[in-house]
C-alpha cells in the first residue's frame, strides 16, 4: 500500500486515469469533504455578505462575528422533529433528498482543481456533468410528488420546468465553448481548426486554453464573452437562485418543493443546492475563465512571473489572517467577549500558519493551481450572493420567456457565429478556390 501511496506522487495524471484506487479514495474524501465544508462556509459567507450589502452586520453573537453560526444551524436542523405528511409516499419521500445530494455530489468528480487534481478525468467530462445534473431534476419531482400536497407539487413542477428549460441554453453555450477548443489559431482572434481535435474532457479544455494563449471568455471578443454571459445567466436559473427563485420564494403562495421537509432532510436539499452552485461555477470557470491557470499566463510569461504569482496564494491567506487578527483586536473590551476574542485570535493565528505553510517551495508549486481555481469559483459564488441582494424576482411566465425566447436564440446564434468564425481560414481558402 505504501508503494501505491508513493508511486502516484510523481505522476502527471489524475488518480482515476492512473488507476491508483487508494489515491482515488483520498481525492474523493478530500473533494466531497471539502465541498461539504465549503457549503458550511458558504452559508456563513452568504449571510454576512448579504447583510453587508444591506448595511447591516449579519450574525455576530454565535461565536465571534457569527463564525459558529453554521454549526449552530446544523445542530438545530439535526435535532428537529422528523415530520412526514400523512399519505406521503414513504419510500420516495425518504429517497428524494438522497437522490438530489447524490447527483449533486457525483458531478464533482470530474471537476479539475489542477492539472492532475481531479478525482478522474473522463474524456466526456463536460457531458457527464450536464447529464448527472439533469438527473438531479428527478429528485425534485420526486420530492414534490411524494409530499401529497398540491403546493409542493406545483412548486416542484415549476422548479423542474425552469431547470429543464435553462439547461437547453446552458448546453448550447457549453457547446460553443467546446467548439473553441478545436481552434488552432493563437491569441484572441486566431482562427482555423483541426478537425477531430476538440475535446469534452475538462482538463483538456483548460489545456486547450493554455495552448491557444487565451481564456475562452476573451476569445473572438465578444463571442466568447456572450457565450459566457449566457451561461452565467442560465446557471443562476439552473440552481433556482435569485432573480429566478420564484419556486422557492417566501413571499409567494407556493413555498416550493421542499415545503414538507424539515430538519435533516431539508438540510440535504440545501446542501445539494449549494453543491450544484459549486458545480456550475466550476463548469463556468473551466470552460471560460481558464480553470486553474494563473492570470496573465501569456501577457506576463516566464519563470520569474511564475515565481511571483506563486507567492500570491500565501500572501492572500496571510492577508485574511491579518484581517481576522485585526478584527479580533478591535473587539470591545467586555468580559462576555473575552472568549470570542481569544477564539478569533486563535483562528487568525491558525490561518497565518496555513499561509506560511503555503510559502514552502514544495507546497507552493502544487497549491497554486488549486488556489486560482478556488478563487475563480469563489468569485462566482460572490456573484450569486450579489445578484440575490440586488435584483427583484421574475414572475414564472417571464422567467420561462427569458429562457426560451431570449437565451436560446442568442445561444444558438453565438454557436453558429463561433463555428463560422473559427473556420475562417478554411472558408476563405474554399471561397478563393471557387474563384481560382
Amino acid at each position, binding site marked *: 500500500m505504501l508503494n501505491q501511496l508513493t508511486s502516484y506522487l510523481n505522476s502527471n495524471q489524475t488518480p482515476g486515469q492512473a488507476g491508483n484506487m487508494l489515491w482515488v479514495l483520498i481525492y474523493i474524501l478530500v473533494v466531497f469533504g471539502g465541498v461539504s465544508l465549503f457549503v458550511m462556509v458558504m452559508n456563513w459567507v452568504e449571510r454576512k455578505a*448579504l447583510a453587508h*450589502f*444591506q*448595511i*447591516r452586520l449579519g450574525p455576530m453573537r454565535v461565536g465571534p462575528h457569527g463564525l459558529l453560526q453554521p454549526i449552530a444551524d446544523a445542530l438545530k436542523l439535526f435535532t428537529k422533529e422528523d415530520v*412526514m405528511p*400523512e399519505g406521503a409516499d414513504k419510500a420516495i419521500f425518504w429517497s428524494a433528498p438522497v437522490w438530489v445530494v447524490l447527483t449533486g455530489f457525483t458531478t464533482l468528480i470530474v471537476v479539475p482543481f489542477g492539472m492532475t487534481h481531479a478525482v478522474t478525468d473522463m474524456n466526456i467530462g463536460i457531458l457527464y456533468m450536464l447529464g448527472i445534473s439533469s438527473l438531479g431534476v428527478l429528485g425534485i419531482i420526486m420530492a414534490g410528488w411524494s409530499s401529497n400536497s398540491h403546493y409542493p407539487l406545483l412548486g416542484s413542477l415549476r422548479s423542474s420546468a425552469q431547470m429543464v428549460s435553462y439547461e437547453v441554453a446552458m448546453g448550447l453555450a457549453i457547446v460553443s465553448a467546446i467548439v473553441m477548443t478545436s481552434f488552432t489559431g493563437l491569441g484572441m482572434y486566431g482562427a482555423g481548426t483541426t478537425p477531430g481535435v476538440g475535446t469534452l474532457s475538462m482538463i483538456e479544455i483548460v489545456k486547450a486554453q493554455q495552448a491557444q494563449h487565451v481564456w475562452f471568455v476573451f476569445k473572438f471578443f465578444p463571442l466568447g464573452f456572450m457565450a459566457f454571459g449566457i451561461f452565467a445567466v442560465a446557471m443562476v436559473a439552473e440552481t433556482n437562485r*435569485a*432573480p429566478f*427563485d*420564484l419556486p422557492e*420564494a*417566501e*413571499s*409567494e*403562495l407556493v413555498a416550493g418543493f421542499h415545503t414538507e421537509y424539515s430538519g435533516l432532510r431539508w438540510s440535504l436539499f440545501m446542501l445539494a443546492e449549494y453543491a450544484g452552485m459549486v458545480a456550475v461555477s466550476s463548469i463556468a470557470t473551466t470552460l471560460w475563465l481558464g480553470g486553474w491557470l494563473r492570470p496573465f499566463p501569456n501577457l506576463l510569461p516566464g519563470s520569474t512571473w511564475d515565481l511571483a504569482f506563486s507567492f500570491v496564494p500565501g500572501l492572500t491567506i496571510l492577508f485574511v489572517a491579518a484581517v481576522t487578527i485585526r478584527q479580533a483586536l478591535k473587539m470591545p473590551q467586555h468580559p462576555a467577549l473575552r472568549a470570542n476574542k481569544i477564539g478569533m485570535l486563535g483562528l487568525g493565528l491558525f490561518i497565518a500558519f496555513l499561509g506560511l505553510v503555503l510559502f514552502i517551495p514544495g507546497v507552493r508549486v502544487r497549491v497554486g493551481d488549486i488556489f486560482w481555481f478556488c478563487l475563480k469559483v469563489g468569485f462566482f459564488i460572490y456573484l450569486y450572493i450579489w445578484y*440575490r*441582494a*440586488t*435584483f*427583484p*424576482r*421574475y*414572475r*414564472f*411566465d*417571464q422567467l420561462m420567456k427569458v429562457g426560451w425566447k431570449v437565451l436560446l436564440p442568442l445561444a444558438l446564434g453565438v454557436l453558429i457565429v463561433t463555428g463560422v468564425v473559427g473556420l475562417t481560414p478554411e472558408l476563405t481558402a474554399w471561397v478563393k478556390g471557387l474563384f481560382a
Partner: protein
Amino acid sequence: MTTNRVNTDDWGDRGTTVLDANELVLNMGPQHPSTHGVLRVILKLDGEKINGTECVIGYLHRGVEKIGENRTYTQFAPYTDRMDYVAAVSNGMGYCEAVEKLLNVEAPPRAQYIRVIMAELQRIASHQVWLGTHALDIGAMTPLFYTFRDREEILKIFEKYCGARLTTHAFRIGGCQYETYEGFEKEVLKFCDFVEPKIGEYEALLTTNRIWVERTKGIGILNGADCKALGVTGPVLRASGVKWDLRKAQPYEAYAKFDFEIPVGDHGDTYDRYLVRIREMYQSLRIIRQAVEGLPEGPIMAKVPKIIKPPVGEIYHSIEAPKGELGYFLVSDGSTQPYRTRIRPPSFVNLQALDKMVRGMLMADVVAVIGTLDIVLGEVDR
C-alpha cells in the same frame, strides 16, 4: 409517529365559494408575509388566473371609533396615532384640524408651518416604508434596508421634537405643544440634503431595472373613472390620471403658501404608482425646504380653553395623508366628549379596488397589487 388530524368542516366560506373542477379557492390567510398586516384575501383561481377576490378584514379591529365616544377631545388624540401607525403625524394633524374647525379657531402661523414640515417629513417616511415593503414583496431585498435606514433620520428628528418616534402625538388642539428644539431648522435642512441622493439611489436600483419594469408595468391597471366610482384617493388616484390632491384642491394649514407640483401618472398601473410616490417624495422635500426657510416667529398655540367643549354641531374635515384622503367626521353634542368620531381611512376605501385591479392577473401579481395600494391594516380595521 403520531398523526394529527385537523377538522376542516368549519372552515367554510359564507357559501360564496363552490369547489368547482375548474376553479380553485385559495386562502391567502391573515398570517402571510406579504399582506402588510392581518388581511385575509380569498382568491378564486382558474389555473393561475384570478377570477375573483374577497377581502376579509377585521383582524385588527380595536374599536377606536367607540373609544372616541368615551374620551375627551384632548384624550382622544393619542388614539389617532395608532390607526395608520406608519404615518402617525398626519393622523394627529387631521384630527386636530377637525376639532379646531369645530371650535372655530385657527392655529397660529408658526404652528401651521411646523405642522406642514412634520407632515411632509412623515409623508417621506411613509413612502419609504411603502417602497421598502413593496420591493421586498416583488423580491428585491435591499431597498427595504436602505429606506429604513434613511427613515431613521426622520424618526430621530421626530424623537427630538416630540419625544416619540412612531406614535408621535405631535400636535395639540389649537396648535403645537412643543416648540421646535435647538437646531431644528438646520437638522431638517441637513436631512433634506442627505435624503435627496438616497431617493436617487432607490430609483437607480429599481426604476429602469428590467425585472422591476416587467413585474410592475401593466399590472393592476385601474383607470380614472373606476377610481372615482370606487372613491379611491391618494397616489392611486393620481397615477390613474386624475389630478386631485387635497393640498391643492382644498388647501389646509399653510399649504396654499408653498409652490409644489402634483405628480400625475398616465396608465394607472403599478409602475405609475411607484413613479408617482417617488416624485411625491421629491415634492415633499421642496415643500419642507420652503417651509423651513419661511418659518415665522410667533406663538405656537392658539387661545383654546383648557377644557374643550365645542358647540353642538358636526364637521367633516379631510387631509391628504400619505395614503390618500384621511377624513374625520366629528359630531359634538356640547359635552367634553364627542358624540361620534367617524374616521374615513384611505386604505379602507382603496382596498375595495383590489378586486377590480386583480381580475385576470396571475397569482404572483396579487402580492404586487396589494403592495402598490399601500394599505395599513391599522387604518383599514381601526
